[in-house]
């Protein structure tokens, strides 16, 4: 029992070895992660198209993603609206006090960029970590194995409803986010900088492509957040530490996925459609 233990500490890796490991590890890790995510995405799509996600489970998940994030989105996006208008208006004031374009530019930027992306980040944080925590604790308490022994496919049973719920709710929340941020910004603009509400509420700069771009972003965040989070949860191993690490990994991976998707979609839309 005792004879299988070392007598001396194992030799630590040489410094150049650790350097290579440190530089290389993130790449292999990201590669492995991506492969797992894509495989899970296909499995979930398969389950969805087979109609395997129960209607009740989907509604439940949509409620968990959407309704239960309302307060959080209101608070964060509300503050974002306040901050942005306050900062930009202060800047403009120093140059020349012409606020006529402020509201229009603000609303356009909200629709195409900030509302979907910040909402996506917030949902990644709240819902992504929640999904990883739930599924991760089911893995380490062997509930996922028990599902499999009862012939219930974990992807059908756990992942597909969450994906459907989130794909529907994230765009809704993004639309809601535009409203909240705009109202907050408008109220602040009116109270502090005397910007008339009619001037602020201008849709002059909003074109069709802006709306499409915002929605495309929201839908793809809605799809990928639960996939990436569920993948982190399903890869949890060993005890309470495992759930913690899975949840942590989900927060990082989902937030990162949102930033990456934002970059890819914005870049692609500029290159292809020049908007």
């Amino acid at each position: 029992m005792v004879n299988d233990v070392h007598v001396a500490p194992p030799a630590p890796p040489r410094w150049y070895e650790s350097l290579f490991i440190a530089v290389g590890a993130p790449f292999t890790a990201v590669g492995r992660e991506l492969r797992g995510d894509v495989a899970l995405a296909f499995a979930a799509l398969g389950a969805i198209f087979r109609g395997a996600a129960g209607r009740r489970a989907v509604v439940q998940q949509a409620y968990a993603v959407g309704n239960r994030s309302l307060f959080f989105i209101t608070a964060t996006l509300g503050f974002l609206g306040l901050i942005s208008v306050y900062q930009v208006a202060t800047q403009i004031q120093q140059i020349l006090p012409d606020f006529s374009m402020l509201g229009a530019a603000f609303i356009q930027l909200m629709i195409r960029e900030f509302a979907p992306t910040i909402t996506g980040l917030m949902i990644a944080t709240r819902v992504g970590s929640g999904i990883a925590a739930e599924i991760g604790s089911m893995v380490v308490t062997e509930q996922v194995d028990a599902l499999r022994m009862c012939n219930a496919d974990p992807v059908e049973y756990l992942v597909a409803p969450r994906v459907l719920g989130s794909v529907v709710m994230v765009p809704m929340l993004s639309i809601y986010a535009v409203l909240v941020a705009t109202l907050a910004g408008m109220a602040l603009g009116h109270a502090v900088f005397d910007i008339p509400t009619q001037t602020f509420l201008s849709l002059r700069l909003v074109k069709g492509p802006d709306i499409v771009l915002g929605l495309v972003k929201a839908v793809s965040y809605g799809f990928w957040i639960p996939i990436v989070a569920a993948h982190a949860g399903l890869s949890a191993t060993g005890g309470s530490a495992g759930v913690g690490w899975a949840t942590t990994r989900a927060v990082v991976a989902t937030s990162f996925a949102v930033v990456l998707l934002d970059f890819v979609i914005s870049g692609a839309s500029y290159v292809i459609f020049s908007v």
Partner: protein
Amino acid sequence: MIEFIDIHKRFGEKRVLEGVSITVEAGRVLYLIGTSGAGKSVLVKHLVGLLRPDSGRIVLDGQDITGLSEAAFYAVRRKCAMVFQHSTLFDSMTVLDNVALPYRKHARMKRAEANERALEKLALVGMREAAWRLPAEIGAGLQKRVAIARALTLDPQFVIFDEPTTGLDPLAAKHVDDLIRSLRNDTGVTAIVVSHDIRSIFTVADRIAMIYQGGIRLDGTPDDFRRSDDPVVRQFITGRPDGPMVI
């Protein structure tokens, strides 16, 4: 000497201890037995200030420690160590660092000296060879021995063992039993062992107390327990599935 006097403790609606009094004399090993959830661990955690009683008093070596503040309890904890059910080794540190930590924090020893003292303690439990491993790399039985070594670093007068053999295979359990026995014989510590491992109870205990439904059902020597004709006690020690016991 350890004295629990009329301890009451409840968690929300659930009354766990309803007037428990036990005395452990110096240099003795008391086994605390009872069904799962009877409140054995709850009782011993009062001794190191991890839980506070709703009423009753705890006297350790003549000193009433019931109402001590968290800060004042740190002095008590130096002479009263606890070995937890799941070993609770710090998983980011090697076995050696785990055992050396109390030396470095309390005696302000240099690393080399602390390590040397820690190795002595590890040798005591037969784990010197595993000093540079991480807790996750050794089995549950060996982890338990390291946890015992760590609890002994400050040379405590009193040691509490919370289910030391639960989840261990018979061989590892026997090692732990031997350790507890030699600890009493060689260093004269006073120990309370929470356990429902019948084999350890009857091979190691000087005295046994059984907690049942919030109170002490029987408190006596192993022979008292063997001879007892209380049906609840009999059912517990023979482990029969049917009987008067409410579980």
